[in-house]
């Protein structure tokens, strides 16, 4: 009996067989599909960004339409660090993570109270203010022209970021994997469970002794760090940073990606990133003018039919329950 309870509890946190297989495939992809290494790199970055948003949105129920604030912060910090201090990517990544986490800690004060709509707007506002700041501080950031002249050093002193993007893709995937494992442990821990409790019912969470505000602040900070890492990866693998890393579109896109893949499930962000990016890439090269129409149609159908149902075609023609 005790064992049953124990097993039932541990079931979600145990690695399923397909998980290591999936990650092996992912790790191999830059080599097998070497001509697509660049898009793989971008997907890895976006997936990491989506995982970060999932921590706050999916697990803690805090909606954010300004997650690009941290992404952008990471990007600029990493780019500036490489330009002004030293070109080593790993050190730059760490610095970017720390700075974004700090920003997250400060911003967490703004999401503690209010309704979903309020949070949506406050987070959005913060990102837009950062965007304006980056624009105004053009002596540092290069303003609207973007930050140019970033030269990245080789990874571990050995691997140069090459034109094909293989090194970049491997680097991004490995960083994403490490952070994914951390996020996975976090969400399966008691700490993660208290987050879900807060998401489901704040009143009750408080009534069983969970310090709601501090938990939210902590997870927001962690998510900011992850988003910062994603931003840093983008800046480092592309070698520049521009204002649109803070843009509203980026925050909105990442929300779309996460919801497409499914919230409250770390692989949701990854799935969403793969589906959305590939779809965007393929459709927009077929019809560069009107690809948004097809993406829109996809979203509408996905939401009308439901994610579960769309993935199980054999249920399409069965009569649904009440």
């Amino acid at each position, binding site marked *: 009996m005790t064992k049953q309870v124990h097993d039932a509890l541990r079931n979600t946190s145990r690695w399923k067989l397909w998980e290591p297989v999936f990650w092996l495939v992912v790790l191999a992809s830059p080599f097998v599909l070497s001509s*697509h290494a660049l*898009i793989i790199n971008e997907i890895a970055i976006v997936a990491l960004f989506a995982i970060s948003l999932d921590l706050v949105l999916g697990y803690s129920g805090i909606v954010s339409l300004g997650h690009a604030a941290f992404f952008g912060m990471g990007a600029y910090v990493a780019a500036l660090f490489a330009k002004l201090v030293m070109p080593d990517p790993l050190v730059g990544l760490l610095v970017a993570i720390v700075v974004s986490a700090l920003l997250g800690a400060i911003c967490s004060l703004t999401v503690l109270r209010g309704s979903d709509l309020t949070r949506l707007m406050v987070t959005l506002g913060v990102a837009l203010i950062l965007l304006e700041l980056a624009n105004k501080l*053009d002596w540092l950031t290069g303003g609207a022209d973007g930050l140019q002249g970033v030269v990245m050093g080789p990874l571990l002193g050995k691997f140069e970021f090459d*034109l094909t993007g293989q090194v970049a893709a491997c680097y991004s995937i490995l960083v994403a994997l490490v952070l994914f494992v951390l996020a996975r442990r976090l969400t399966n821990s008691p700490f993660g469970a208290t987050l879900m409790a807060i998401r489901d019912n704040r009143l009750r969470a408080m009534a069983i002794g969970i310090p709601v505000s501090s938990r939210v602040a902590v997870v927001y900070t962690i998510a900011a760090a992850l988003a910062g890492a994603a931003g840093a990866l983008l800046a480092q693998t592309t070698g*520049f940073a521009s204002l649109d890393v803070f843009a509203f579109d980026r925050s909105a896109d990442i929300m779309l990606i996460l919801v497409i893949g499914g919230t409250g499930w770390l692989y949701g962000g990854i799935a969403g990133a793969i589906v959305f990016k590939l779809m965007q890439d393929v459709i927009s090269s077929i019809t*560069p*003018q009107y690809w948004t129409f097809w993406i829109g149609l996809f979203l509408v159908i996905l939401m009308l039919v439901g994610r579960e149902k769309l993935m199980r075609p054999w249920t399409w023609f069965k009569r649904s329950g009440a």
Partner: protein
Amino acid sequence: QDNNKFKIGLIIPMTGQQASTGRQIEAAARLYMAQNGDTVAGKKIELIVKDDVATPDVTKRLAQELVVNEKINVMAGFGVTPAALAAAPIATQSKTPLVVMAAATSSITEASPYVVRTSFTLPQASVAMADWAPKNGIKKVVTLVSDYGPGIDAERYFKDRLLFNGGQVVESLRVPLRSPDFAPFLQKVRDIKPDALFVFVPSGAGAAVMKQFLERGMDKAGIKLIGTGDLTDDDQLNDMGDGALGVVTSHHYSAFHPSPMNKKFVEAFEKANKGMRPNFMAVGGYDGMRVIYEALRATKGQGGGEALLAAMKGQIFESPRGPMFIDAQTRDVVHNMYLRKVERKNGQLYNVEFDVIKDMKDPGKSK
């Protein structure tokens, strides 16, 4: 792989705020190909169009993919400055010529030795205006520009030149790029009462500025409206209505440019695009294709990126805009700057050229 193909990667914004830029360029590029055939020096020219939504990191990835996977010979397009700047390192690394057909910040050509520009630079347009204005009784000017790279370029060059010419910029206003309402800024201008208001806003917002300018009765208060050609974009001029009449702008291209070549160009363009009038973006695309074609012809289809680049430098030819050439040193465009006034011709509104400053180099490069 395919030795008989010559691939041009055209990276332009086809959706989003800058979409009309991309449309004009693509239409012009296709027109050029239709008029001049798609085989040059034994190579079949293939145009690969990619939409970058004017987002630089996407631009960079697309450029990189095109270079690595499609093995393109030339990349072209680039709707906004950051996008061009993002792609520049790829050009350097892969030794691929990069033809800028739209972006207009002065510094772009310096970002890589492989950049060639066939559009224009904002300093050219604003300096031309700053030369003309004081001679025509405009001494006290307020500038109003969009708060981003090209806007700041326009502001700076206009101000310096005007000062040099004995005029004075009494106030410089920068409006947020996405400002929907210009009322407060225009009111400020009205309260200052300068001789003229010099405007640079991305094409599209120009109409709004003009309308609100009139609504506020600023013309009646004796303030003139001047600006670079973006303000009276040919693409939209007709819809702006009679309020636009008499507005003076400086630019390198007008659809009304009185040359046989331009007449032919405008006619063919309108015919191919349901009556859409070509604007300065289109001409940048058209001439860009010309530069690429001729470089290919000159290298007889044999040379790599270096050879193509060398063949692009120094090209002199007649464009629909008038005579132009690619400065071999700066790789930037040298062309006439025209002063134009909006007038009604054949029942339509046009920018009618009335003065010209010949063969202007980019003033941004002389410093």
